[in-house]
């Protein structure tokens, strides 16, 4: 074997070895442990009332956060790329904030504003609205952390396609709305799709922020991620692993969707 292919092999094994140790083996083990005692046992662990509630709560949060962030994302992307307004650069950088903030800080921030002793707390309590330690708070937290993805994916696409097609549509008589629906939206659909997939993955997996705002009431304000922690601390490893596997499968589906989108659509 020439020295060139020996070094290639060495590099490859080191890289793959590292990945196996840090990434593949741990995840693989959890899968193994979950189904170690058979599929039925695993199913049982993951269909307890608490687990089911956690699952549906997670779905609910995602179902609210993703569409909202998508609409916001497209609107913000359009504003940033197509319009000049004062503070545009600042606005764009602010959108990166959720990437920079620790989830726990997110939770704290929301508590400080919407909690009982928070800035809006009094006003909200007077109107019987509870945000913190209740679902609305968790919705806010989920929205916060998954905010930037659609914007960030759509902006480069918008930049690349340019305004020519839209201008052509206008000269042919199309109104703003029609142009948007028939020209802009189809052109950016892959960017939006990516953004949605990433937003969903992030929303599903959020832990720290919802942990702070939820109050951890099992069966009421626990998402699937919180449920995992709950089961772990109750020494119910089987329950924790089973819930983790559900989340892992969702995560892997996310990755698979990304790969599929990449192959079918425009470059990311």
């Amino acid at each position: 074997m020439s020295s060139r292919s020996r070094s290639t092999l060495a590099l490859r094994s080191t890289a793959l070895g590292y990945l196996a140790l840090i990434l593949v083996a741990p995840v693989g083990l959890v899968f193994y442990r979950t189904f170690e005692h058979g599929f039925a046992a695993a199913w049982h662990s993951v269909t307890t009332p608490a687990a089911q509630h956690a699952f549906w709560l997670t779905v609910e949060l995602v179902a609210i956060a993703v569409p909202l962030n998508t609409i916001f994302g497209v609107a913000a992307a359009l504003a940033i790329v197509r319009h000049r307004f004062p503070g545009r650069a600042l606005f764009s950088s602010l959108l990166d904030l959720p990437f920079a903030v620790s989830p726990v800080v997110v939770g704290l921030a929301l508590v400080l504003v919407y909690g009982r002793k928070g800035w809006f707390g009094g006003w909200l309590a007077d109107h019987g609205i509870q945000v913190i330690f209740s679902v609305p708070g968790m919705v806010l937290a989920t929205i916060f952390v998954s905010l930037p993805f659609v914007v960030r994916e759509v902006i480069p696409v918008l930049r690349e396609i340019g305004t020519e097609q839209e201008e052509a549509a206008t000269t042919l008589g199309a109104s703003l709305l029609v142009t948007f629906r028939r020209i802009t939206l189809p052109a950016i659909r892959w960017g939006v799709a990516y953004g949605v997939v990433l937003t969903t993955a992030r929303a599903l997996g959020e832990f720290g922020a919802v942990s702070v705002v939820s109050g951890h009431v099992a069966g009421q304000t626990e998402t699937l991620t919180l449920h995992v922690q709950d089961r772990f601390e109750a020494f119910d490893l089987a329950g924790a692993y089973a819930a983790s596997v559900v989340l892992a499968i969702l995560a892997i589906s996310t990755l698979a969707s990304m790969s599929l989108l990449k192959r079918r659509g425009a470059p990311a």
Partner: protein
Amino acid sequence: MAYLSVIVLLPLAAVAVRSVDGGLGGFWRAVSSPEAQSALELTVVLSLIVVAINAVTGTLIAWVLVRDSFRGKGVVNAIIDLPFALPTIVAGLTLLALYGPRSPVGVDVSYARVGVGMALLFVTLPFVVRAVQPVLMELDRDMEDAAVSLGASGWQVFTRIVLPGILPAILSGVALAFARAIGEFGSVVLISGNLPFKTEVASVFIFGQIESDNIPAAAAVSIVLLAASLLLLAAIAGLSRWGRRHEL
């Protein structure tokens, strides 16, 4: 705009405000309490070590993904993103399963700093790889051939020709990884056992302070983390400009 404010800006502003609840003096006291100091120190040191490791392993993995070809490379490329997609709590749990008290290979890093480090390695894995990959792909292979024709060995080609080209990308990835690492919570919270002064990182400290209703302290340390992250974001933007300075 309103959407952004309600969701993001207002709450963050609240943190800033509450952090100086006891005045600047109170802020300083909260931040310099022994437990806070220890948590911040641990967070920073551990994150630095982790991103240093990532700089090497991330570049290596990116190299193998771009320059090498083998069966299943596509799958390997896809799983790099796993830490992005996998919930942090699950990441922590999986590491605990393999390298914790019930480890099948007899390795137990729970309740130890090494454990925290490994959790951080897991969640920061993709950053350097994904930052370096596109740059590596765009690199002009002719430059490397030119260097070879001038007598350079493989290692010399890498250090003198390739590395300068990808350095900005590596640093960018490192900065992103660092920003992520200092704020990481979910993956760390199980494996570390949250022992104050030993394995308690800043985010866990903040969490503890919130639970004990010690809001100003929580807010103060939060602001420190926030400031660091914002600085890093700015640095990353600057890095991408610096990286393009010699473009033909």
